[in-house]
Each structure stands twice: as structure tokens, then as C-alpha cells.
């Protein structure tokens, strides 16, 4: 966090000044470790074993927050007797289909819910199809839906199939000894972490878990976060001040780019993108978002969707045409970034827009990225600088090796200089879901323009070209409300008008033309609009609340509601009903956040209560009541189908209802827990240009004996577009380097300040050597695992102040099955002293490795690990 989020880290330092204990769990000793009370070096890719070990410790020593767990989580819920766990099936959950490498998840459901479709994200869709469109993204602000909120509960937590008992059995083997064997963390240190975390949780104290994007970049990345969620729910650290799981994003406003998404499979506010053949009618589509019988606020999805369509198509959206549903494009599979790259290579994609993104350097499998772009007819790059993705046609590494030649590349590249964040108005949404408005400080120089300017005028010109078209496919574009006011010599569209449209308006009645006060104002009858329901309220009362900037010291409230605006409805802590006990009293005075005011008959407190305001703690719904009225007075998780926090996820995940430890796609370590080596549902691409290393069960894996991981340094920003062109930043970290332990340096004769070549089946790159005690080899039983650290900021090109080989070129592509994120935080490699070969000799050098390892397109891609007797 200190490395990549130094400005946010000031609050960790502030907490430390007040006596907070800081524990840093990371393969390397970083600038964060230097400030921590404890640094725990663990093996990259072993986190579920670590988290599972903590869960086991909590359950075995009964350290969980019992009152919280019984009332607020699904610990008491009984699950189906059809469910079989990884211990029964040696690493698989029930329902695995080896043909498609997906789970039929219907057996994971709650008891009595068997036969309700298969418990998928959108009932009725096939699992392969769900995985390919990354359906897990839709759960960005909620749990999966359930057809029926009625569940069987045993509040004594003794029923053998209640969730708590299932968890207990599942994690019983995740002992401190096993953690040491898998993670390389000593038993003593692991137990210290367990004691610290549990001692700091309960009525009076809360613990926060903080992770960064690297945690998600694994073939089991979603399950890492689930592991932390289970710990936090067991310890009662959700919905309470000082608790939670805090995701630190890779860039400013990454939260905003999922809320108002740049993802192919989402519409604003986590509404799913309609899918061809599945969501053919408006009713099919609505039915996929929520079930009419479930509890909570997602049953109001029809109001969110209708208002959203009204924002896009205005008066053209009517009840008769289902508010324009037919104009909304459909997806028909995986159109994610990696699939698109492969489609480029297969000549299925003609054009590509890159906006503030440098995939030639910043994306895994850099070679495929660059070769893919060389197949395009046209490429638009909008960036602050002439990044490598815009200049690959003349200086890509593949030109040096002879794989590409400039004369043969037909891609026409259009480079547009972009306005920086101080040169345009708009909002950032940070990780606390807080929108913060920025005013334009200066005009952008020269031809630089904002994204808003680019897309508004592109849309305007497209609409002019298509004017009068009767083609059905053009109607959606032609009917858009595309009327933002513009100003200035360059006709800049108003960012303020966009924010108002996102907030939404009353369209009819006596309030017509007024801004909505929140999503509760939204109607399904076409009388309201709103571009993103969760953002509705940012302009409540006609005031841009994102621009609120009153320092907390002047607010008289430590939660500081008048600094920015957080969705939904300016709540700073989600699910904060859980900060009070089932009777509505704070768990403790020290940790009071919201509470039930008996006299006033309403919820009140420091934060905006995340609960129906007048619903008493004692309220119990009539059987069969759905929607917000179906929530009981002690159902704090109001976006969950049963109102409870899910220790066990009966639906919504593609690879298991609970995290199980699997090794990374490439690992030098045999999974000590199960026969199943790696995630059996991970998405792999069996292609000649995407070779994987042999798994530890295959011949030839010794050719790549070391683990490497990638990361960022404070001095640079991601692929370097914002830092490698600036001399004052570049001089602080001028060259690509690898961090190795003295032990590995000795083993491979690597010289401090010399060069090393790091090799995978994809390519070989060179880096300066930094030998440091901050990297330690880890002992796992009889095996010593060496880890190599590679910052990924540099790329090969001619325009930046500093350049160098790119660490991302080393990775192959294998993805998490829930959200299609690549595994680029743990893989295997070799390292040798000296510089790499250049020119065509580089290809021969790498080929020698792949030959020695015997690599084919099947290598490493066997998803279901054969039983021991079946192995060659």
C-alpha cells in the first residue's frame, strides 16, 4: 500500500500513531513492510491456504463473534444434502463436468432449494456461457439471486449440514503445519497473526483487511477475496467502523469504471448486458436480475432499468417498445480483452480503441498483444504520450526478432493526445465508492482533448452520417439523447450535464424537470430517468454533492458526510445495520455507527443507515413477503437474496461455494491438500502462441524452477504512460531490474548491478540485478522455493525517457473463471546471469527451453488432475 498508494497510506500511518497494529503479508519486504509491525513473507499464489488457516483457527478455537454470526450470516442455514465437498472428491466440489471444465452448481444450494434452475447468476443459463461472459462481474454490488428466500436454519449451529459445520469440516485440514508447508510461513508467525486478528475483533474492536489488484490476478483470484470475506463475517468485521475488506484500485477511479463500466458485460449500476438467445424479451432480462420472491432492494430492478433506458433514449423509450430494450446491443460470448486479442490474431477484429491503456507493456502476454494489434486495420490510441502501443509498428521487440516488419504492418494508427485530469472536469470514484468532483484547472495544450469531448463529437458525427437511416441496427444510435450543452472554442461538452443525467430527473408530473433525490424516486412507468441508479442522489436537491469539500474538522462529525458523496445515498459504510446488535443497540459505545432510536421509531447514527429507516429490529415479515418488505429487522445484508452475509455462497461463483487452495496454473509445488493441482475451472487457451509450462506432475517442469511475481514501484505508474515520459520520475527508477535473494544470486551466480535474463516459454527478457535481503527463499518441507520480483513499468520503445524489457511479456494467459482476470502474480521461470540474446537468436534461445521442457499446446493445460494411479 505504501508502494502503490502512498497518499492513502497516510491514514494507515495515522492509525498507527493511534496505536493500530499493522501486519503486512507479501512475498517481498516492501516499503509497506518497513512501516508495519509485522511482515509475513509468503509464497506467491498460496493465499487461500493462509486465509483458510485463519478460518480454521477461528472455528477451532471458537473465536468467532457468535451473536453476529448467528444473526447476520448464513452460518445457521442448512445446505442441500446433495452437496459434496473437496474432501469427499479430492479437490473437487460436486457437479464438476470434465467435458466443459465447469460446475453444475445446483447441488451447492440451500436445503429445500434443489431444482431451482441450477442456482446460477442468471437462472437458466449454461455455465460455460456464464463463464465466457464473466457473469461474476454482475455481483459487483450484491449476491446472486435466489428464487425463494425461505431457508432452513439451525441457530444452535449444530446441524451437520448447517453452513458453520460445513465450513468447519472444509477447513479442518488447513492447520498451522499445513500453512507452513504451503505458504512457507512459520507456524509461530502464522499463529501470531491469528491471535492478533482475532484479539482485535469483537464488540469493542474491529480489524480491516486491505488488498490491492494483485490479489485478484490469479486463477483463483475471486476466491482470495471470498476467503477474506469469510474471516471478516466470522469475526463480525463487516458493516462496522474500522472493519471491512478494502480494495485498493490500480488507478484513480477504477471503482468508477466498474460502477459506470468499461466492461463488455455490464451496464451502469451492475445491470447485466443482455445476452443474445437468453434475454430475448424485456421480461427475460428483468427476470435474470432478480427473482420476484427474493428479499432486498434488487427486486426494484425494473425501476432502475427503465430509468436507465429513459436516460439513454428519452422520449423514444416507451412502454410499447419496452423502453428501447430492442435497441440495446446483445453480447453472445466472451468479448473480454484477452478473447479480443485472440480474435485480432485470427483476423476477426478490424479496429480497436485504446484509451489510457498501454497493453503492449501493461497486459499479460505482451507479444500476443502487439502481434494482435499488427493484424488490425485501424487503431485509435488516446494517451498523454506516444506510448508503446502506439509505436509498436516501428519499435516492438518483434521487429528486432524479425517476427514483424514495419513494411508489412497494415494497421493504420491514429494517435490523439489526451487531456489530463487537471485539464477537464468530472468525477473520480475512489475505493470507498466516493465520488469527488474536480474542476478544470487549465485548458489542455494543443490538440489534447478530454475523453468526453472525443466521444461526444464522435457520436455526433456518427449520428450525422447515419441520419435518415432506416436500418434497424442504427436506430439505437439515432434515438440516443445526444444533446449535452457545449462551450468554448472546442465545443467542450459539459461534464456537469452528464453528472445530472446520471443522477436522473423527474420527467412528468409537478416535479418534471427536477433532479431525483435518490434511486428510491425511480419508477418503472417511464416517469423518471437516471443513467446509473446507484449514483442517483449525487445531485439531490439540485446540488452537486460530489463537489462537497468541507474538511472533517469543520463538520462536527467524524464520518464527514460533507466531503464528496458516496454511493448509495452517501453511505460511508455499507451494510452498517450490522454495526448494531440484533436489538438495534451498538455492539459497543466505542464502535457505535448507526442504531435504532426507539422513541423516534427510526434508525439513526453517525452514518446514513443502510437499512429501511423505520423498520424496527423486531420486525419479522409475513411468510412470502418479498423485496425490501421481506427483510427482517435483523437482516443487515440488504442486497443479499436472504438478507444474510454469505460465509458459504450457494450461488454466484463458478469455482466453488467456499475457497479451496489450488496451486497457480504454473507452480513448482505439488498441491499438498488435494489431488487436484490447480483450479479445475480456470480458463485456458490452448494455442501455439500461448504455451504453458509443464505442471509439477509433468515431465520437464524442472526447466522452469523459480517463481516470479510482478508489481509496481512508487516511482512509476503501471505501464509507464504517466511516468516514463517524465524525467523527474524516470530518474528515480531509471532501469528495469529484478529483485533476487542473495541465496538465489549465489545459486545462479547473479551479480549485483549486473544483468540477468529471465526466461519463460513465451520469451526471455533482461533486467539489472538488485540483490536484496528483502527477498527470502521460502522453505516448504524439504523444498526451497526461490521467488523473483519484477516491477512491470518498462517497455521496449523509442519515445519514452527510459525504456526496457517488459515483465508482462513473460506471462501466458490463464484466467479466473468468475471474472476473466489473468494470472499474473505467480508463474514459473528460469533465470541466468548476463544479457539476453538479441535478434532472431532470442527466438532460438527460447525455443531451446521449450524443446527441453517438451512443451506442446496441451502442456500444463490439463484441467482435471488425473488420479495418482492414472498418471503416466
Amino acid at each position, binding site marked *: 500500500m*505504501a508502494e502503490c498508494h*502512498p*497518499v492513502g*497510506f*497516510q491514514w494507515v*500511518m495515522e492509525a498507527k*500513531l493511534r496505536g493500530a497494529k499493522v501486519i503486512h503479508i507479501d512475498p517481498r*519486504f516492501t*516499503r*509497506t*513492510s*518497513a*512501516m508495519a*509491525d*509485522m*511482515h*509475513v*513473507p509468503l509464497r506467491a499464489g498460496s493465499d487461500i491456504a493462509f486465509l483458510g488457516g485463519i478460518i480454521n483457527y477461528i472455528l477451532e478455537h471458537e473465536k468467532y463473534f457468535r451473536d453476529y454470526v448467528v444473526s447476520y450470516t448464513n452460518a445457521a442455514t442448512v445446505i442441500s444434502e446433495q452437496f459434496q465437498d473437496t474432501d469427499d472428491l479430492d479437490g473437487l466440489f460436486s457437479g464438476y463436468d470434465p467435458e466443459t471444465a465447469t460446475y453444475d452448481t445446483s447441488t451447492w444450494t440451500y436445503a429445500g432449494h434443489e431444482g431451482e434452475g441450477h442456482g446460477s447468476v442468471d437462472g437458466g443459463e449454461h455455465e460455460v456461457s456464464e463463464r465466457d461472459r464473466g457473469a461474476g462481474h454482475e455481483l459487483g454490488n450484491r449476491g446472486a439471486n435466489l428464487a425463494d428466500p425461505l431457508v432452513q436454519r439451525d441457530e444452535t449451529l449444530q446441524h451437520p449440514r448447517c453452513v458453520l459445520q460445513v465450513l468447519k469440516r472444509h477447513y479442518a485440514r488447513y492447520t498451522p503445519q499445513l500453512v507452513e508447508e504451503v505458504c*512457507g510461513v*512459520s507456524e509461530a*508467525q502464522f499463529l*501470531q497473526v491469528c491471535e492478533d486478528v482475532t484479539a482485535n475483533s469483537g464488540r469493542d474492536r474491529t480489524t480491516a483487511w486491505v488488498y490491492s489488484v494483485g490479489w485478484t490476478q490469479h486463477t483463483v483470484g475471486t476466491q482470495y477475496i471470498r476467503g477474506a470475506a469469510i474471516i471478516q463475517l466470522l469475526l463480525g468485521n463487516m458493516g462496522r467502523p474500522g472493519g471491512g475488506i478494502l480494495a485498493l484500485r490500480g488507478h484513480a477511479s477504477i471503482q468508477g469504471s466498474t460502477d459506470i463500466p468499461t466492461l463488455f458485460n455490464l451496464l451502469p449500476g451492475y445491470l447485466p448486458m443482455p445476452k443474445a438467445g437468453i434475454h430475448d424479451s424485456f421480461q427475460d432480462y428483468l427476470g435474470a436480475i432478480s427473482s420476484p420472491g427474493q428479499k432486498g432492494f434488487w427486486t426494484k430492478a425494473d425501476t432502475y432499468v427503465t430509468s436507465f433506458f429513459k436516460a439513454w433514449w428519452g422520449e423514444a423509450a416507451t412502454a410499447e417498445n419496452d423502453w428501447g430494450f430492442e435497441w440495446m446491443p446483445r453480447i453472445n460470448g466472451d468479448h473480454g480483452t484477452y478473447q479480443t486479442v485472440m480474435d485480432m490474431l485470427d483476423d476477426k477484429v478490424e479496429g480497436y480503441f485504446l484509451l489510457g491503456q498501454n497493453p503492449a507493456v501493461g497486459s499479460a502476454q505482451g507479444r500476443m498483444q502487439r502481434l494482435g494489434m499488427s493484424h488490425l486495420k485501424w487503431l485509435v490510441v488516446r494517451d498523454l504520450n506516444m506510448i508503446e502501443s502506439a509505436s509498436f509498428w516501428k519499435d516492438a521487440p518483434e521487429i528486432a526478432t524479425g517476427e514483424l516488419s514495419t513494411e508489412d504492418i497494415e494497421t493504420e494508427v491514429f494517435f490523439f493526445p489526451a487531456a489530463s485530469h487537471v485539464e477537464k472536469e468530472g468525477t473520480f470514484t475512489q475505493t470507498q465508492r466516493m465520488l469527488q468532483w474536480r474542476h478544470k484547472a487549465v485548458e489542455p495544450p494543443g490538440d489534447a482533448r478530454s475523453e468526453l469531448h472525443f466521444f461526444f463529437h464522435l457520436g455526433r458525427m456518427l449520428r450525422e452520417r447515419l441520419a435518415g437511416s432506416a436500418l434497424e441496427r442504427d436506430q439505437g444510435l439515432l434515438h440516443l439523447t445526444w444533446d449535452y450543452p457545449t462551450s468554448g472554442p472546442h465545443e467542450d461538452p459539459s461534464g456537469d450535464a452528464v453528472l445530472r443525467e446520471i443522477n436522473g430527473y423527474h420527467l412528468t408530473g409537478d416535479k418534471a424537470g427536477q433532479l431525483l433525490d435518490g434511486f428510491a424516486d425511480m419508477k418503472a412507468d417511464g416517469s423518471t430517468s437516471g443513467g446509473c441508479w446507484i449514483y442517483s442522489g449525487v445531485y439531490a436537491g439540485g446540488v452537486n454533492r460530489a463537489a462537497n469539500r468541507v474538511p472533517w474538522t469543520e463538520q462536527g462529525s467524524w464520518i464527514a458526510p460533507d466531503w464528496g458523496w458516496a454511493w448509495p445515498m452517501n453511505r460511508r459504510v455499507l451494510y452498517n445495520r450490522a454495526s448494531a446488535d440484533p436489538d438495534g443497540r451498538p455492539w459497543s459505545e466505542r464502535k457505535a455507527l448507526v442504531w435504532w432510536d426507539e422513541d423516534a421509531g427510526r434508525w439513526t447514527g453517525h452514518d446514513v443507515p443502510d437499512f429501511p429507516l423505520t423498520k424496527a429490529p423486531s420486525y419479522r415479515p409475513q411468510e412470502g413477503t418479498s423485496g425490501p418488505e421481506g427483510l427482517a429487522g435483523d437482516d443487515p445484508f440488504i442486497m443479499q437474496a436472504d438478507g444474510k452475509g454469505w460465509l458459504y455462497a450457494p450461488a454466484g461463483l463458478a469455482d466453488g461455494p467456499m475457497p479451496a487452495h489450488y496451486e497457480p496454473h504454473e507452480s513448482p509445488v505439488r498441491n499438498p491438500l488435494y489431488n487436484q493441482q490447480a483450479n479445475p475451472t480456470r480458463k485456458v487457451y490452448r494455442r501455439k502462441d500461448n504455451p504453458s509450462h509443464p505442471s509439477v506432475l509433468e515431465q520437464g517442469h524442472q526447466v522452469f524452477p523459480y517463481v516470479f511475481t510482478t508489481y509496481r*514501484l*512508487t*516511482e512509476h505508474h503501471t505501464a509507464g504512460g504517466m511516468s516514463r515520459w517524465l*524525467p*523527474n*520520475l*524516470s*530518474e*528515480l*527508477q*531509471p*532501469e528495469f*531490474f529484478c529483485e533476487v*535473494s*542473495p*541465496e538465489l*544470486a*549465489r545459486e545462479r551466480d547473479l*551479480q*549485483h*548491478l*549486473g*544483468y540477468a535474463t529471465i526466461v519463460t516459454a513465451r520469451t526471455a527478457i533482461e533486467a*539489472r*540485478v*538488485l*540483490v*536484496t*535481503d*528483502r527477498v*527470502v*527463499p*521460502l*522453505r516448504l518441507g524439504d523444498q*526451497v522455493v526461490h521467488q523473483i520480483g519484477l516491477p512491470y513499468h518498462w517497455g521496449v520503445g523509442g519515445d519514452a*525517457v*527510459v525504456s526496457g524489457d517488459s515483465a508482462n511479456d513473460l506471462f501466458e494467459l490463464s484466467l479466473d473463471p468468475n471474472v476473466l482476470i489473468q494470472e499474473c502474480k505467480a508463474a514459473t521461470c528460469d533465470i541466468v*546471469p548476463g544479457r539476453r540474446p538479441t535478434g532472431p537468436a532470442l527466438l532460438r534461445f527460447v525455443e531451446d527451453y521449450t524443446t527441453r521442457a517438451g512443451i506442446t499446446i496441451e502442456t500444463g493445460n490439463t484441467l482435471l488432475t488425473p488420479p495418482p494411479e492414472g498418471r503416466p
Partner: protein
Amino acid sequence: MSNSFFGPLPDPAADAGWGGEDRQPRKGFFTDTSICIGCKACEVACKEWNAVPADGMNFLGSSYDNSGALGASTWRHVKFIEQPKTLGTQDAGIAGTAVGPPASDVLNRAADSALTGDRSSLGTSNTVDLGMPLTTLPGQADGAQRTEFRWLMESDVCKHCTHAGCLDVCPTGSLFRTEFGTVVVQDDICNGCGYCVPACPFGVIDRRVGEKGVTKNEGIAQKCTLCYDRLGEGLTPACAQACPTQSIQFGDLDELRERAAARVEALHERGVPEARLYGEDPHDGVGGTGAFFLLLDEPEVYGLPPDPIVTTRDLPRMWRTAGLAALAMLAGAVAAFGTGR
């Protein structure tokens, strides 16, 4: 005036002649290294505000430091010190975890080859600045297991001494004492004579190396001005403004000294007995510094002189001695001529 050159001097600005409406409380920096996260925002903010040029894309291999040292084009410099020692009550998670000798051994080999002129394995850099003491490291001899570990960071800067040697020796008046008690070079007056460079007991001030006519202020002595231009407008210096953790604190020196003393006490209570202040003592060899530090070990660990003494301390005595000698010579000459008559 007493103590103009040495010893405690409560108000160096007044000593330099500032008075009346111009008088200002003495300003300074308190740099608390215990909360420095090594982000180098201070280095960048300083260069941006003061238009100090980048001065070399050199990979130094000195932990995460690639700036090297304070100099004419580096007015803030963050040091990174990796050592096999414990920091307070921290559990670095490294002791006993691994096999083999610590990095210092490998680094020594690099240093050895640098000393013997064998550059074959050292890439293109001509500098091997290890930035840390390399002797008597635990674990080095037997090479069996790792020992403890700590990573210290410190943002170094011009000390703005009460008795500033650089200022005392400046023949042009380019260096002067401001109304805030700070020491500033006027680049349009400096003639690049370089007297100030060896006069600084901390090795801070230096002449800018570059290409004549191309590099701004080439040959001119440069260093931190404590953002004199910003102070005049009531602004905080750029480095302190940019520091995310308030490791660099700016303010009235008296107040900073109180704050620092309390911080040391708090660290002592929290099991960091090594915490100490450096430069805050008006009785030290430079009369105390305007920019002082909280360190987590001996100053030598940070490459700071343990007992800095203003190089002009002996100037009055030398002048007296020289004067007496001259008088004696004169008297001798007079006597000689007198007796010879």
C-alpha cells in the same frame, strides 16, 4: 556580537541584521524518519517547484535510491538503508526463514570487483554506492540462516545551520541569511568560486555540473532554499506540502522542537529506544540546525556526521592569531629597523 560564529545563538536572522517589521520567527523542517515511507514525493515536488533539472538516469543498485546524494540538482534526497538489524519491536519475518548468507556478502563481492576495477559483471553504471555499513554483519560468517532485518528511510535536506559555513565563506554575498533564519543562494550573484562547497560540514551544497549555455545555472552553487519564494507568500515549502505522511513537517522552529521532543518520548514508550533527534541542539557544533531530524539509530547509519562542526568555528581565533602574528611581525620589523639605525 557574541556567538556569531559558534555556540548557541537564539536568533540568527537578528544576528544577520534583520529587525523591525522584517523580523520573522525562525522557520525550519522537522523530518521524522520514523514515518517516512520512501515515496520520494519530496524529491519530485522540490524539483518541480524549483525547476531543478533531472540529473541522470543512473541505476545505482543502492536499495531503491537512484539519486545518490544531495547536490546541486538534488535538494531533497531520500536514503534507503537495508540492514540486518531489528527496528524497535518490528517482526520483519525474515530472521531464521532462509538459508544462505545475507545480501551484504553478495554486495561485498560487487564492491570488491568495483575496487579491483573488474567491471565485467557490473553493467554500465560507474557507481557502486552501497549506502550502508558493510562490516560485522551477523550471519555473514557462517552463512547458515538469515538474521533480523530493517529498512530505514530518511529524506535528507540542507540543514540551514545556525552557523552556516557556506555563508561565512561566501566572498560575493550570494549566500545570505533570510528573515526566516534560513540560508539561501542567489544564483544571479554567485560566481561559482566554490568556496562554500568544502565549507559545509554535511556535504550539502555543490556546484551544478552540466553543459555551459545549456544547463540552467551550470557551475553555480545550488541547494535547498527552504522554498524562500513560497515562504514569502505564506506557503509551506513544496516538499513538506507533498509529503503524504507528514514525515516532513514545516513550521516555527521552536514549535517543531517541542513537537519533536514529544515524538521521541512517544517512540521510547513504544519500544523504540534508539529514537533520537539530530540537529536540534543549539549547543552542537553548528549551533543547532534549522532543518533537524528524528533518527532511529546513530547518525552514521544514515551517513550523517555524528558531531558536525561549522568549518568557520576557528575563524575568529585564526584571525586573532593571524592579527597577532602580523602585529608581532610588524613590531619585529619596526624593532629591527629601529635597532639598525
